[in-house]
């Protein structure tokens, strides 16, 4: 394995050194800023730093990538994992990645006719290589605790049950969707597929467990901007004031903030019907709390409340870790062949079957 890494590293050096020198960001030692108190290339300041108007400085590029899931797996009872259990989990993730890095048989044939049995987004055709993914390899650590779930309340770490109203609403949506061809119109396709919003939620800032779980925070006395790398979703938080009237429904809701001591509290309502978090409605209400924990960490806490969807409010915590990297552009429309492929694929199937496809 080691020799293969070296081999590939050498090959990369030969093939790409010239262009990389110009395009790749500087690769400074990762802990340099934290150790010396110097400004880091990602803009993250020391923990005690203040902005010009005297507020805690949350600015810089952060990642919320983690292997800790939103909900606690059914077979784990406790919120806090032992050091050994957390190490086992992290090792398993690394081992799996190393296994997937192993060479394939160069004499392999085409995959099976009828599909390869893969599920989820890979949809029976297998998706793409693991090397494209960057889901994180660490358990979330908050206040020194290694966490088994991001949700801390309810105490079982699970989402509260849906209300009857929510179940009825979901059934009605499914029925409406079934009554039309989901590939008939680009506007029937999901927002992420149309490059409008990320496939992870914009509020709260929960990781997508795939890639690009990075965000940049910029502060002024009047506003805080949170720019997510995925689909360049930029949330603009007004400091002070009140929410806009109920009939105004911005894509990512309406966020207003205030400071409680050294914690930034952001209150978001007015979500549009196209957005939802785990089945939520337009009544979704999210309160987020951002607090600098140390030189390289923001403790992020969120509370989700939607009485028309969830039988109780729930709260989670996620560590945002400083990155020594920059956010990269995610020019989603630029190469979005997929949307056209999906639609033209449906037209092809209609022709082949001699009928309009109803799915």
């Amino acid at each position, binding site marked *: 394995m080691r020799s293969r890494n070296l081999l590939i*590293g050498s090959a*990369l*050096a*030969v*093939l*790409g050194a010239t*262009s*990389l020198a110009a395009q*790749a960001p500087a*690769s400074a*030692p990762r802990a340099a800023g934290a150790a010396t108190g110097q400004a880091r290339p990602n803009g993250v300041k020391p923990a005690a730093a203040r902005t010009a108007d005297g507020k805690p400085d949350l600015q810089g590029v952060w990642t919320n990538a983690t292997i*800790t899931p*939103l909900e606690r*797996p*059914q*077979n*784990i009872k406790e919120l806090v994992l032992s050091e050994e*259990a957390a190490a*086992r*989990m992290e090792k*398993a*993730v*690394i081992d799996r*990645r190393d296994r*997937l890095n*192993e060479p*394939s048989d160069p004499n392999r044939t*085409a995959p099976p*006719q009828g599909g390869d049995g893969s599920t989820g*987004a890979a*949809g*029976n*055709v*297998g998706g*793409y*290589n693991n*090397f*494209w*993914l960057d*889901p*994180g*390899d*660490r358990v979330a650590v908050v206040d020194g605790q290694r966490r088994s779930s991001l949700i801390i309340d309810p105490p079982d770490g699970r989402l509260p049950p849906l209300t009857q109203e929510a179940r009825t609403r979901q059934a009605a949506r499914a029925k409406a969707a079934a009554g039309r061809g989901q590939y008939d119109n680009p506007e029937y396709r999901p927002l*992420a597929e149309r490059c409008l919003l990320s*496939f992870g939620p914009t509020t709260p800032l929960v990781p997508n467990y*795939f*890639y*690009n779980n990075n965000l940049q925070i910029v502060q002024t006395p009047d506003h805080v901007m949170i720019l997510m*790398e995925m*689909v360049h979703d930029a949330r603009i938080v007004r400091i002070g004031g009140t929410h806009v009237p109920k009939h105004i429904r911005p894509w990512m809701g309406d966020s207003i903030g205030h400071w409680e001591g050294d914690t930034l509290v952001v209150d978001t309502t007015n979500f549009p019907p196209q957005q939802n978090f785990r089945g939520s409605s337009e009544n979704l209400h999210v309160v987020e709390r951002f607090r600098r924990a140390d030189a390289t960490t923001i403790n992020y806490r969120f509370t989700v409340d939607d009485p028309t969807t969830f039988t109780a409010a729930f709260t989670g915590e996620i560590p945002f*870790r400083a990155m020594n990297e920059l956010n*990269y552009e995610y020019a989603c429309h630029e*190469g979005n*062949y*997929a949307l056209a*492929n*999906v639609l*033209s694929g*449906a037209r*092809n199937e209609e022709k082949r079957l001699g009928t309009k496809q109803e799915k």
Partner: protein
Amino acid sequence: MKKTLGGFLLVAGLLIAGRTVIAHHAFGAEFDPNAPIRLQGKVVRLEWVNPHTWIHVEIVKDGKPEIWMVEGGTPNTLLRRGITKDTVAVGTEVIVDGYQTKDHSLKRANGRDVTFADGRKLFMGSSGTGAPRDGSDPTEGGTKPAPKKPGGR
């Protein structure tokens, strides 16, 4: 093996619980499970674009050249490891297995597994912070370093 089974189940539970989101788009809606393909040929172009990278591969079929477009993932994760579209030279021979688009008039497929001609993966996977695991951070997991950034330290 038995010793690690408990840990494995624990981790499997975490991983499964974490994978409840959909990707940028459902590959099952784009590609045809009844049209499996295996391509072997030379890279002629890389589109290092979001939401998904496309690698153009020229193969020879019945004595005639054909160019296929192969869909990968977001380039951002590789860019963060110092890998750009110039990392794989035009002319590099690759093997691809995947499925053709449902629109059979297009010579496009998903890159279910993209390797060099000897079977090595085209790139090496990394994970975690978005930064390469270069050993400078003692708290980072894993036993094997990711490929270093070419031209870097």
